[in-house]
């Protein structure tokens, strides 16, 4: 295992080498929305080039262009010094570029070995049939090269997320790979598993493979990358050696203005307990969770993706059924079997997946806003015309801009769509709001509006649970911060006590920088 120091040294040596691939002046539009504009980017052999930016900054779009999923409207992609145009990931792979997307493209029913060979030339026996033994051996070899031992005959669906991730990396390395793009690879990994991944990345760069590393975790980025490129709102902001940047500077570049201007949080004076959860457990997802939300309070719930935060919130909302534990609303024990139950008790969950879980995209803005209150605005089952007035009011209150109330919600920008999801929740007049990554993929302007709205809602006496992977957001908005790791609450901090380091330590299981690996 190479030490990060060595990796960095190798990277410096590589600066003279010609880039593996290079983007120049790339622009991509979706309808009227510009995703990236005039962006340049390159990765050299043997370096880790981190690509950072807020959600919606254009990182994924840019990398999907490299991977052949999108074709750029303007600009060029050069691979090995020659102009290239890929029309599929297959083309990219043929040129030695592999992408490991956040949602792994594996075949769950097939074995580990076979997953490495789908779509590729497979070894054959003398008789012309497929040589399964050779595939198993080859797969074992690839996996061992990555420092892991997995049973190559095991079905992928039986593996843990981290193991599946490793299979995806192994799959990416079957061909002659010269560059690997990793999109938030550690988002679902524990601290130990992430360490293992960094070891693998070190091996890759030692073998002169270029790595593009997309991540939100600043510590990781400074630990493993040689260069950093910052994108903001689809524009290229800066590319610099990692050694020339620090965390504060990086955040400023990403956000575009000092953080304190983005957030709004008034003094709070929390009232009575609105929601209390005791010993809530759902096997394999979270265990023994105790949690209390008071009126007028914003409680941040931090942790890594996969820590069980979304599952917890969805269980409180009745989407998933907990195996054990109790839920109290206003001091009374309640049973919640469905979202309808939860809404009756004054609880509303704003989901993380806006397009698939939050909105009916072909529906009008009005029909989306009133979807959860149809029972209230209907008489004898017939929808009354008063729904129009309600929709109008929320469009004004939340300053939803860009379309008429009767237009399809799909016509709005991401930020305004998010406001419609929040409006739908508020129309129900809940006492408890569970917000899951409410500013994900939202532009900075809309972000600041959503923060102001959260502050107003807390002032009105609503209890808010803010699930967020952006530490700054949690630290700036929450009165109290809870941290979840592997399904358990592992830390609680008051507003004064909460620091980036403290929260991260609780979230990752105490593997701080400088602590030597046990490898």
């Amino acid at each position, binding site marked *: 295992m190479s030490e990060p120091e060595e990796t960095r040294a190798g990277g410096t040596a590589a600066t003279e080498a010609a880039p593996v691939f290079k983007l120049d002046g790339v622009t991509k539009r979706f309808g009227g929305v510009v995703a990236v504009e005039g962006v340049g980017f390159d990765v050299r052999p043997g370096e880790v080039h981190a690509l950072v930016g807020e959600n919606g900054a254009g990182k994924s779009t840019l990398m999907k262009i490299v991977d052949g999923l999108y074709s750029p409207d303007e600009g060029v992609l050069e691979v090995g010094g020659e102009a290239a145009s890929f029309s599929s*990931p*297959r083309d990219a792979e043929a040129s030695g570029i592999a992408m490991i997307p956040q949602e792994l493209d594996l*075949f769950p029913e097939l074995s580990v070995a076979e997953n490495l060979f*789908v*779509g590729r030339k497979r070894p054959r026996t003398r008789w012309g049939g497929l040589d399964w033994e050779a595939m198993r051996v080859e797969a074992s070899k690839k996996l061992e090269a990555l420092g892991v031992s997995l049973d190559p005959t*095991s079905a992928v669906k*039986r593996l843990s997320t981290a193991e599946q991730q490793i299979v995806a990396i192994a799959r990416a390395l079957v061909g002659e790979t010269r560059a690997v793009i990793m999109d938030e690879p550690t988002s679902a990994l524990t601290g130990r598993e992430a360490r293992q991944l960094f070891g693998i990345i070190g091996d890759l760069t030692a073998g002169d493979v270029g790595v593009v590393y997309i991540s939100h975790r600043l510590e990781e980025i400074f630990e493993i990358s040689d260069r950093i490129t910052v994108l903001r709102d689809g524009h290229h902001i800066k590319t610099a050696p990692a050694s020339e940047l620090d965390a504060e500077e990086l955040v400023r570049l990403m956000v575009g203005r000092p953080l304190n201007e983005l957030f709004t949080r008034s003094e709070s004076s929390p009232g009575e307990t609105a929601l209390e959860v005791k010993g809530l457990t759902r096997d394999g997802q979270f265990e023994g969770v105790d949690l209390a939300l008071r009126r007028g309070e914003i409680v941040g719930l931090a942790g890594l993706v996969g820590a069980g935060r979304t599952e917890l919130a969805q269980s409180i909302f009745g989407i998933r059924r907990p195996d054990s534990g109790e839920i109290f609303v206003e001091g009374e024990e309640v049973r919640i079997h469905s979202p309808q139950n939860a809404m009756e008790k004054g609880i509303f969950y704003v989901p993380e997946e806006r397009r698939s879980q939050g909105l009916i995209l072909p529906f009008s803005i009005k029909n989306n806003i009133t979807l959860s209150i149809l029972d209230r605005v209907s008489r004898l089952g017939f929808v009354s015309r008063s729904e129009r007035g309600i929709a109008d009011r929320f469009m004004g209150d939340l300053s939803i801009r860009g379309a008429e109330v009767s237009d399809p919600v799909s016509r709005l920008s991401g930020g305004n769509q998010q406001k419609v999801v929040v409006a739908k929740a508020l129309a129900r007049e809940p006492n408890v709001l569970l917000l899951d990554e409410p500013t994900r993929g939202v532009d900075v302007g809309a972000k600041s509006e959503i923060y102001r709205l959260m502050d107003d809602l807390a002032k009105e006496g609503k209890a808010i649970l803010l699930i967020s992977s952006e530490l700054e957001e949690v630290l700036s908005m929450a009165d109290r911060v809870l941290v979840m790791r592997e399904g358990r609450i592992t830390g609680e901090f008051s507003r004064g006590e909460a620091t980036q380091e403290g929260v991260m330590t609780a979230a990752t299981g105490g593997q701080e920088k400088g602590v030597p690996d046990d490898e």
Partner: protein
Amino acid sequence: MTSEARAQAAGTERGAGFRRYLRRPEAPALAFLVLLLVVFSVLSGKFLSVTNLEAILTSVAVLGIIALAVNQVVLCGEIDISTGSMLGLCAVAGGATAQSTGGFVLPLLAAVVVGALCGAINGSLVTLGRIPSIIVTLGMLYALRGVILLVTGGTWITGVPNASRFLGMGNVFGLSVPVIVLFGLFVVMEVVGRHTTWGRNVYAVGGNRRAARFAGLPTDRIRFSAFVLVGVFVGVASMIYMGRAGSVQTNTGTGLELQVVAAVVIGGTSISGGRGSSLAALTGAILIGVILNGLVLVGVPGIWQQAVLGALILLAVTTDVVRRRLVGDTV
């Protein structure tokens, strides 16, 4: 690493092998088949005789052969419910050829070509036309029946020469030809499913279409060819049918498409694609044959066949769901 795989590797080899076998898609159906054989043998002395067993296998040959091919379509994540009418049309083509030329090669060729053509139409409408396969094949089920009535004018094809009935009536080494063809094609499909790229790609396309496309698999071509395969197998099966019946009626194959789908899902191939085996399709077909045959032997009137079939389909898909919930298999 705390994966099941590791734990399993550490466990005793025999126990692990057995557990692995139980995970195979056709395991429940196979166990059920064995149980049923025992029950019917106890209930009726005539059941467990070589003659009766061969008779059962001969009677499920048509169903089994088509199920083997439709199995591939289902593995791709599609469905084909046009096989009943397709069988009728192939039989008409083969029958008409038999009447004019005799022999069994040319009629077989004619039936296979017609079948492949029908399959190609299904396949192109699904892949190029982007119409869901259930709608395509439902439309074709009726359209092809119309074609049958049109070309025959509603009259039967009778007087098929004996030489042309070889595939249905023949005996080789004391075994009936339908049984030989059924098991021959089963072996072929097992080999295709395990040892050819096409066979493996079928699983990949049905298991995760998006990932398959990203991996560069020609997903459209694979699905198209699966539909053509159904046509070819239906062509072969139609000549077995004609050989056994000696004539071709205009309603030949009516309702067969249901039995075929039932055989595939009862055998253990997942209707959502990506999981299953040729052995599953064969097991399912034999299971249906045994049940229908057994019901007759224990005195249940034939008019109940359809109801039993429907109940079996529901039972099979329900147990699949229950099994998955019990073992926590969400995919």
